[in-house]
């Protein structure tokens, strides 16, 4: 792709397996997931409910909630030139990374904020916890600047506001400012706008894009909305039922989708700017991951499924520069690789 200097990896996930040991059985939430997030890019994980996108994001700081467990795999974090495996780190070392070097913005801003404290205190607290500032006094000062940065009008007054005094969009901006407060190396935004209205969503997405440009942030964006993907991302990984089925740069993915699931997904979204006679839908539903389908997990819903798809798990195939797909249709049409970028 572009210059080699830009493609310096920040996070490399390798052959990750996450299982949930529930009473009903072992949920194979994530199986053999690998991807790389490069410094300075916006990488997107897209997929439907239950595909495991949030679980993947949690493994990056090893906070998979029980009964989930990382069964196998590596999460390599390039920390100032040295490589550390997040999964092997102790709780104490992880605490230094979480919220400081890798920060989260979660979906529901009202759940992320404690209703009992003013927002300034909560922003200051994340900084005090990680030693970014000396005390709360300095923290409040920084909080005002942060709120200004996320374009909250009248930040001197808003810093003393309780979460319920702010609107949904404002609250999400506060959460973003909390995520940014320690100047993280990686910002993980998990469906940052799905609780917001369209006009407000557009504002928040604009803000994220602006901040990214200004601060040179690396962002991992998790979403189910193909529209958000198209507007925000540089590279995209499509997740289906705990597997990455396709990884590609965003233009490539939308122009030349390869995996039947990606193709179906793109055709199923009604684009308001174009004329649609009939939406194509993907038949069936997302499989139960306690007993996932054999072979390719998409085969029961795939229009091109063959006997081979039912039996064998497809390999990852490189079909173009930086374009990888996990599908038997492309066997022989590209080089088989063990992991994608």
């Amino acid at each position, binding site marked *: 792709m572009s210059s080699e200097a830009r493609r310096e990896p920040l996070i490399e996930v390798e052959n990750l*397996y996450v*299982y949930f040991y*529930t009473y009903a059985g072992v949920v194979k939430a994530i199986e*053999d997931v690998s991807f790389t997030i490069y410094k300075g890019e916006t990488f997107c994980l897209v997929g439907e409910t239950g595909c495991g996108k949030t679980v993947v994001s949690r493994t990056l700081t090893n906070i998979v909630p029980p009964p989930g467990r990382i*069964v196998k795999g590596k999460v390599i974090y390039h920390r100032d030139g040295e490589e550390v495996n997040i999964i092997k780190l102790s709780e104490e070392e992880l605490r230094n990374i979480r919220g400081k070097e890798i920060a989260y913005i979660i979906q529901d801003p009202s759940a992320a904020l404690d209703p009992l404290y003013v927002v300034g205190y909560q922003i200051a607290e994340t900084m005090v916890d990680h030693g970014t500032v000396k005390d709360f006094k300095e923290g409040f000062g920084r909080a005002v600047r942060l709120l200004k940065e996320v374009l909250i009008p009248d930040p001197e007054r808003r810093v003393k506001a309780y979460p319920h005094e702010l609107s949904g969009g404002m609250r999400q901006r506060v959460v973003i400012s909390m995520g940014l407060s320690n100047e993280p190396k990686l910002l993980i935004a998990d469906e940052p706008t799905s609780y917001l209205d369209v006009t407000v969503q557009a504002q928040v997405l604009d803000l994220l894009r602006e901040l990214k440009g200004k601060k040179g942030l690396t962002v991992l964006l998790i979403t189910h909305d193909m529209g958000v993907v198209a507007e925000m991302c540089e590279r995209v990984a499509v997740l289906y039922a705990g597997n990455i089925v396709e990884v590609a740069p965003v233009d490539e993915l939308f122009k030349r989708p390869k995996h039947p699931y990606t193709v179906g997904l793109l055709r199923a979204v009604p684009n308001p700017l174009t004329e649609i006679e009939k939406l194509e839908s993907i038949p069936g539903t997302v499989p139960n991951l306690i007993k996932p389908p054999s072979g390719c997990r998409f085969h029961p819903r795939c229009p091109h499924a063959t006997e081979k798809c039912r039996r064998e798990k497809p390999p990852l195939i490189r079909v173009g520069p930086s374009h990888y797909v996990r599908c038997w249709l492309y066997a022989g049409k590209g080089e088989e690789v063990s992991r994608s970028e």
Partner: protein
Amino acid sequence: MAEEVYEKKILDRFSDALIAFLVKIITLFRKDWYRRNRSRVEEWKLMLYALNRSPIGIAGLVLGMSFIIVGIIGPIIAPHSYDFSFIMATGQYKKYFLAPPGTGGALLGTDDLGRDLLSQMLYGARISLVVTALVLPVGIIIGIMLGLIAGYYGGIIDEFIMRVTDMFLAFPGLILALALSAALTDRMALAIANNPYLTGLVSFIFAVKPNDALNMAQTLSIVVALWIVWWPGYARLTRGLTLQAKNNVYVEAARALSMSSVGIMTKHILPNILGSLLVLMTMDVGSVILVEAGLSFLFGAQMKIPDWGAIVQHGSQYLVNGAWWLVMIPGLAILVSVLGWNLFGDALRDILDPRTRRSIEFKVKKVKKTSEEAGEVSK
């Protein structure tokens, strides 16, 4: 691929057999039943499996069930009648006056009149059981009805019912019981003595001699007092649960189909809140035992009947003589029954909620096994 079959415990097999038996009985009467209710049967199985994995729940169930069983068959298996006296029977005053446990024939010892404590305990279990069975259903039915109405209709009706409920909650139950007992006991005793059917009924359900039936008036007046103080708890809980349940869209959907209010309350709201109510009911069995024992402890001196509370009260006078068993043994019986129901109620809370039921973490042993297999698969 690792196959996901549970290692079934012995208890699970027993549960399967129990459910298979139940299904067989139901299909005797309704042939089509199993085909239509297969999902429900699966859910039952899962509930029992969850219970089987909760040792505390099982302990609670065993204790609670043994309380019921002893309550039913206690008077039948008792070696003597509750008023049988070893002193009267043998004339050995010295041997049987406050005889410690194990003294010839008296397994749990005797009291000052030489009565067999074991027999008294077994008869007492019946009394506790019957009181519980009389108090709870009435409190539950009144409470649930009022709570449903208050929660469903809301507004003025809710306000009125809940303020009345508050009044009853503010009423000291103990004083009410004392007053009622003073007012009611004599009249009730008279009624029982004068009506041969009533005498028969009372002596039958409490397993006392017809002569003692009128002495049960005291216990019955406690029952009446408990009716009055027991329902507000249910009214409150039911109202809260109803308020939650009525926000479910399926209630609105039923309304959009023109379903009547009574229909919505009985078909959609009640079945969905019954689980939480069941937990309270289970725990309340213990509470009734405890409160009833406490009240009969207070009235004990006048009672000739073998109520657990009364036995403790009577026996406490002889604690100075070193007769610990007269207090310890009935005390222990109360403790164990109450504890059993509470433990079972607690386990029930987890079992009845389909979400917690499913998310109970599976055995660790299984985890290791599958992780090894996952390693092989990837290679």
